[in-house]
């Protein structure tokens, strides 16, 4: 089998790519000059992969040495990663002052034009919609996340995609589109204006479409890709409208112009701005799969698992968050913001709260490992939206401190979630991959069609994998912990802040905030349940199918990124929290922040941080914090353990890192919930609360009949009139030709009539 070979030699191919950035450094380039490479290298690589793949498909060299383009992709992403690390390194501690910041570099003058003003003269100086690079702490963070995860997931794909025979001769398409996606993501983060943000946003949408539909021959994949594209398209269109309004207000879409003074000295009509931002938020809702445009994300899991990991968990879906994060200067009344936009924060928080709760509920009943993760993604993104909503609300009410905390937490959660979720998906991919292989291995030699009933993604076929796949189990455990918010691990440091500050808003300022506050709190507990459920169903207990016994981890392509991300997930959250990541990320809209310890020594910082997390000053926050911990750490996992937990089969053992959890899970007794799973609520949840059916029903009853009606109208009425003219003319023609009877007598008669009428006309009219 190909995967058993030592293929580390192939990495030599990516060295030239990695050498690009150091070489430029030697040539005394500045990092901002090199920033264009982050986008340019993928841009030049993706057509090469696609076209070369099409031409050299099947040749030995292409397949074994270049991994059907995978190595090229990895190299390109490596180069982007190195360039972006350079950028991060240069700017991380020397961010320019936000409100007076200019784009650090201009790449492209896209279109330039004049505007006719209301005094009928042209604007002096040409307007430009160009592309430049904008740097602040959010940019740097997301850029790092994106380049890093793209690189790792591409690495993972080399093990995942290239070993599956179904993908043979198709992988160049995967890698090409993967790289194209990466360029979209990088470009979106770097863009210094809303238009180019949108442009790259759409490029990602395209790649999402292409990659979901990677298995284009599958009905479900083709359908899912279309659904994803169209649903996000709905949001995008509103985003476009938002941009139009924004352009109308500011005469520009560049951050440096808009953020300099978003209120234009108080001249901005807050109502108009509200609509602009609301429209943009609808775009974000579509992209980040929030209620009510959430329906595409679960279906998007039809794509290959690396795609789910990268696009639908770690990067693209964050674009919506990024966009909302960019709305802060508009509402930040402390800094030229426009007052009177509290409703926006409320709306965002509500959308987030509803989505968080709903997605978590649906995740309860999912048996497909990727679907669980998909709903989890949706739910976690919704958390961040709730946080951003509260942040906007605080900013708009000039509650600066609270705003900064919740904003920073949201951004930090974005980071934690991206890392954890990327890893979780890769881990699930590892499980699926090995299950699939094991299944193929068992049924080797059997008839082709036999294997089709088996679903390697169904958790009901798994169980007890902890002993077979220790690395994966460990990774998944830490990932789940981070998502759940187990104290001290990853997501805990960010999630607490979101929930606490939302409650703060609800309790002390705005009763309406109570809705989202309650919803996110409940969701915390639910997250504990479904994430634990997933882990227990997969790794704990005894094997539920024979396939499990043949599973074993093998390829280093898959293991390496898992290990790296496990470390980051497990320790990164705490580490960055200590470094003040929350403040740093919030500093984007405040002052030039620095990534440094809050206190002078490490120990003091740790104590400060722990105190801050567990024993905040305000009593009500303290209560909220502990309730959250209780729900997510105790209630959820324990219920999950009662239902799905259990010891491994006899004779099986796992690494100590996870075996404690397996054995712990068997301590809570067990509970049969089969009658519960048949309840109406459960059925409704399994049907995703009927949203898909509702949308489809509406479309089938309105759009399709209407389009058929217009087509009919065009054919029969508009074109029918033309045809009427034709047929009536033909009819008239036959009749008028019949007047030529052939008899000369009739001709003479007609001539006589003609004569009489001429005379009548001459004589009659003139006398």
């Amino acid at each position: 089998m190909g995967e058993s070979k030592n293929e580390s030699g192939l990495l030599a191919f990516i060295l030239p790519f990695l050498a690009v950035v150091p070489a430029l450094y030697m040539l005394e380039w500045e990092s901002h000059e090199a920033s264009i490479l982050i986008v340019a290298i993928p841009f030049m690589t993706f057509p090469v992969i696609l076209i070369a793949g099409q031409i050299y498909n099947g040749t030995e060299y292409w397949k074994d040495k270049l991994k059907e383009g995978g190595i090229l992709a990895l190299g390109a992403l490596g180069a982007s990663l190195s360039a972006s690390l350079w950028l991060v390194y240069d700017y991380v501690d020397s961010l320019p002052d936000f409100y007076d910041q200019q784009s650090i570099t201009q790449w492209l003058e896209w279109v330039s034009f004049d505007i006719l003003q209301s005094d009928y003269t042209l604007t002096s100086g040409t307007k430009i919609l160009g592309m430049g690079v904008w740097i602040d702490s959010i940019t740097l963070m997301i850029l790092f996340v994106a380049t890093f995860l793209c690189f790792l997931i591409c690495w993972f794909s080399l093990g995942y995609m290239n070993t599956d025979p179904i993908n043979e001769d198709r992988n160049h398409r995967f890698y090409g589109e993967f790289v194209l996606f990466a360029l979209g993501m990088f470009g979106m983060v770097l863009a210094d204006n809303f238009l180019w943000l949108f442009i790259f946003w759409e490029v990602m949408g395209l790649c999402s479409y292409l990659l979901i539909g990677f298995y284009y021959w599958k009905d479900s994949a083709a359908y899912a890709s279309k659904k994803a594209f169209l649903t996000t398209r709905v949001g995008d269109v509103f985003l476009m409208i938002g941009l139009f309004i924004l352009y109308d207000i500011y005469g520009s879409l560049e951050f440096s112009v808009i953020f300099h003074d978003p209120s234009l000295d108080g001249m901005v009509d807050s109502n108009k701005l509200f609509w602009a931002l609301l429209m943009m938020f609808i775009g974000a809702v579509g992209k980040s799969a929030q209620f009510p445009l959430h329906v595409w994300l679960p279906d998007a899991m039809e794509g290959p698992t690396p795609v789910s990991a990268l696009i639908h968990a770690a990067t693209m879906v964050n674009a919506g968050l990024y966009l909302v994060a960019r709305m802060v200067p508009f509402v930040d009344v402390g800094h030229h913001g426009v007052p009177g936009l509290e409703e926006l924060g409320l709306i965002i928080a509500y959308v987030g709260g509803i989505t968080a709760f709903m997605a978590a509920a649906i995740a309860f009943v999912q048996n497909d490992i990727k679907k669980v993760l998909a709903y989890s993604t949706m739910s976690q993104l919704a958390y961040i939206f709730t946080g951003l909503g509260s942040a906007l609300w605080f900013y708009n009410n000039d509650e600066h401190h609270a705003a900064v905390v919740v904003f920073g937490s949201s951004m930090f959660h974005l980071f934690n979630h991206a890392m954890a979720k990327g890893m979780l998906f890769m881990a699930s991919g590892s499980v699926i991959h090995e299950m699939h292989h094991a299944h193929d291995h068992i049924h080797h030699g059997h008839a082709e069609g036999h294997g089709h009933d088996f679903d390697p993604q169904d958790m009901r076929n798994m169980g007890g994998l902890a002993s077979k796949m220790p690395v994966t189990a460990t990774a998944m455990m830490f990932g789940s912990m981070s998502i759940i918010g187990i104290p001290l691990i990853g997501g805990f440091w960010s999630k607490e802040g979101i929930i606490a500050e939302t409650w703060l808003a609800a309790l002390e300022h705005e009763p309406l905030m109570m809705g989202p506050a309650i919803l996110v709190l409940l969701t915390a507990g639910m997250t504990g349940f479904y994430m634990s459920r997933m882990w227990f169903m997969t790794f704990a207990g005894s094997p539920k199918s024979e396939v499990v016994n043949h599973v074993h981890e093998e390829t280093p392509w898959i293991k390496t990124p898992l290990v790296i991300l496990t470390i980051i997930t497990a320790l990164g959250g705490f580490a960055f929290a200590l470094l003040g990541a929350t403040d740093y990320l919030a500093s984007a809209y405040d002052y030039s922040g620095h990534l440094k310890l809050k206190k002078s020594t490490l120990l003091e910082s740790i104590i400060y941080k722990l105190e801050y997390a567990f024993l905040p000053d305000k009593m009500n926050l303290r209560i909220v914090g502990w309730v959250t911990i209780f729900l997510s750490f105790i209630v959820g996992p324990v219920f999950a353990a009662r239902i799905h937990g259990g010891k491994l089969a006899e004779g099986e053992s796992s690494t100590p890192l996870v075996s404690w959890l397996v054995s712990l899970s068997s301590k809570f007794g067990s509970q049969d919930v089969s009658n519960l799973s048949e309840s109406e609520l459960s059925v409704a949840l399994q049907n995703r609360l009927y949203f898909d059916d509702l949308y489809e029903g509406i479309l089938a009853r309105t759009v399709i009949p209407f389009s058929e009606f217009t087509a009919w109208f065009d054919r029969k009425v508009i074109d029918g009139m033309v045809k009427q003219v034709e047929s009536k003319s033909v009819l008239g023609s036959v009749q008028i030709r019949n007047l030529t009877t052939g008899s000369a007598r009739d001709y003479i008669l007609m001539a006589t009539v003609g004569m009489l009428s001429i005379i009548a006309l001459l004589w009659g009219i003139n006398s």
Partner: protein
Amino acid sequence: MIDPSWIAGLGVILFGVGLIGVFTRNNAIVVLMCIEVMLNAANLNFVAGTMHYGDVNGWVFTAIAIAIAAAEVAIGLAIFLSLYSTQQTISLDDATTLRN
């Protein structure tokens, strides 16, 4: 001497008769005769005009018009003959192979 207006009046009657004749009669020869009648109506007018104005040109016109009529008859008869030789009819209503 007859008043020229009577002659012209006769011409009107003749013209009317000829005109009615041409589209009521079916036989080509009769129609040809009716045409002659109409031409003669014109001749009467020329004569009347000559008498009224004392201008001899009218007579010249009359003479030439008669010549035209003669030529017409000659040609007409020849054509009808050829019609008859192919279709065995000189009835205008029957010679309708060319129509529509």
